[in-house]
């Protein structure tokens, strides 16, 4: 049996929310139960970057809190490093680093003091702390500013420092909630490279949530898409594309008459066709062949200059998955 770093079985978490008593109807008034995480089954192996994708309020943060043992599941169970999050949360937190929704930095303290504090929390020796602080701050380009209080720093600099803090004690698992938020493109690319290297060379597992699907596509070996607490899809990005994604094609040229477009639209492999400026955009079903379509267009009198065929991006698949699901009341 494979050793999973994270393994959840029907992980579920409900929240009671107070509602004002207004209607006098007991079924409508009083506390309402909201299911933030709904029978979530995750299997995440060691040494990968795992992307947890979902719109706002989909249950990503609650899932991280459950995995860190900060919240107890209502039903089901979760294991991290094979340890139960209900009973062994302290041991789990020892071996993990986290950048949560907010940077969590002490803004009155200097950058060095922030890292020093979490180094002490991790029981690192003084020598190890100082060496690690220097290594991380130099790498993040913050070493020269280590004595400054972090309050007035830009969001990007704070984000870099918060990432450094999450990595301070060389954890085996790092939770990163929107790690590239606030970073400039160069810093974001450098972070992606760092995370990728960390996962492949040090066998560190990285669990990240992001809205930046380009980031996820470049970085993550596996992804899961969640909405309203339910997992919609999981797997490698290319598997998700093969499973869910249509092929998109663009045909550049002239003389695309309405009659010709209607003929092409009637073909079974064409899900959608629409003219855009001087070209056509086609959504094709999986495995569709372009050549008969191009032949039909030429025979119908169209002048074709260029044909481009591309697979759906992770963003397309995400949108497709999320929009397909009816929103829960």
């Amino acid at each position, binding site marked *: 049996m494979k050793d999973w770093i994270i393994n959840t079985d029907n992980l579920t978490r409900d*929240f009671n929310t107070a509602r004002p008593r207004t209607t006098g109807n007991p079924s409508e008034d009083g506390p309402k139960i909201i299911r933030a995480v709904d029978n979530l089954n995750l299997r995440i192996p060691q040494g990968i970057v795992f992307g947890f994708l979902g719109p706002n309020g989909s249950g990503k943060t609650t899932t991280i*809190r459950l995995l*860190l*043992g*900060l*919240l*107890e599941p209502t039903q089901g169970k979760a294991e991290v490093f094979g340890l139960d999050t209900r009973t062994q949360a*302290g041991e789990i*937190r*020892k071996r*993990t680093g*986290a950048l*949560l*929704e*907010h*940077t*969590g*930095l*002490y*803004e*009155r*303290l200097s950058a060095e*003091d922030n890292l020093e*504090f*979490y180094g*002490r*929390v*991790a*029981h690192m020796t003084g020598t190890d702390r100082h060496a690690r602080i220097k290594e991380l701050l130099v790498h993040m380009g913050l070493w020269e500013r280590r004595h400054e*209080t972090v309050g007035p720093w830009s969001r990007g600099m704070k984000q870099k420092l918060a990432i450094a*803090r999450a990595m301070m004690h060389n954890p085996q698992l790092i*939770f990163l909630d929107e790690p590239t938020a606030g970073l400039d493109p160069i810093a974001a690319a450098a972070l992606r490279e760092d995370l990728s290297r960390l996962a492949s060379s040090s066998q560190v597992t990285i669990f990240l949530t992001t809205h930046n699907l380009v980031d996820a596509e470049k970085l993550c070996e596996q992804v899961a898409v969640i909405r309203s607490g339910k997992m919609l899809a999981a797997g490698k990005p290319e598997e998700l594309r093969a499973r869910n994604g249509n092929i998109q094609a663009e045909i550049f040229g002239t003389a695309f008459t309405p009659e010709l477009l209607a003929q092409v639209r009637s073909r079974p492999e064409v899900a959608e066709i629409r003219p855009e400026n001087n070209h056509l955009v086609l959504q094709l079903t999986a495995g569709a062949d372009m050549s008969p379509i191009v032949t039909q267009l030429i025979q119908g009198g169209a002048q074709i200059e260029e044909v481009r065929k591309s697979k759906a991006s992770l963003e397309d698949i995400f949108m497709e998955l999320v929009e397909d699901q009816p929103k829960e009341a």
Partner: protein
Amino acid sequence: MLFDIWTVARKDLKEIFIQRGSLRSGIANVLIVIAISGILFPLQWGVEWINSPVGLISILWLPLFMSMGLVADAFAGERERHTLETLLASRLSDSSILYGKMLASILYGFGITLAGLLLGAVTVNLSHPGAGFYPVPYFLGALGLSLLGLVLITGLGVLISLRASNVRQAYQRMSLGFIVLWLPIIIAPKILSDATKLQISQQLAAINEMQAIIAAAAVLLVLDLGLIFMANVRFRRSQLILD
């Protein structure tokens, strides 16, 4: 666990001293309070400051008031500044976080008390040469009551801070509590008859000072233990996350 408690306390003390943006202004604040309790009051009291326990005990409210502001910040401040969740996501145990925060506030207040008392002795001896040092029982009694009072205020502050959504709310509630505690002492002389006041003062004069200090310490100790127990029960990671 002791190392973890000290780690949290050390961080909080560091934050306390630079809370207005610089270490210099933080130290200046503390020096002002120490100067009030260690120079201003002793100069007013003269030699009596050394020989009477009443003077010593009367300045204990100052560090209590200072610590009250700090402990209001302990949890409500971390929550308001969005640092609490990251702290809770660390390996620190619930007890280490709780006691570390309490220790920071107690050490701050106790440091002010001790510095004020020592500076007070120096001040009196400079203005009245040969006044000597406090009688040891008075000095230890003042330190003991200060410590127990600080634990009381800190324990109450933790309970209030845990329930408050921000520092302002916590501080307002604590100030209100402080006023309620002091109100009877302030209004009693106004509403009591002269005969009652005379009777009380005669009874107070008859009480042995050390016995009174010990009795007050015993009451404070019981209250402190109760508050620490309640704070322990109330402090739950999962509850703090939901709050």
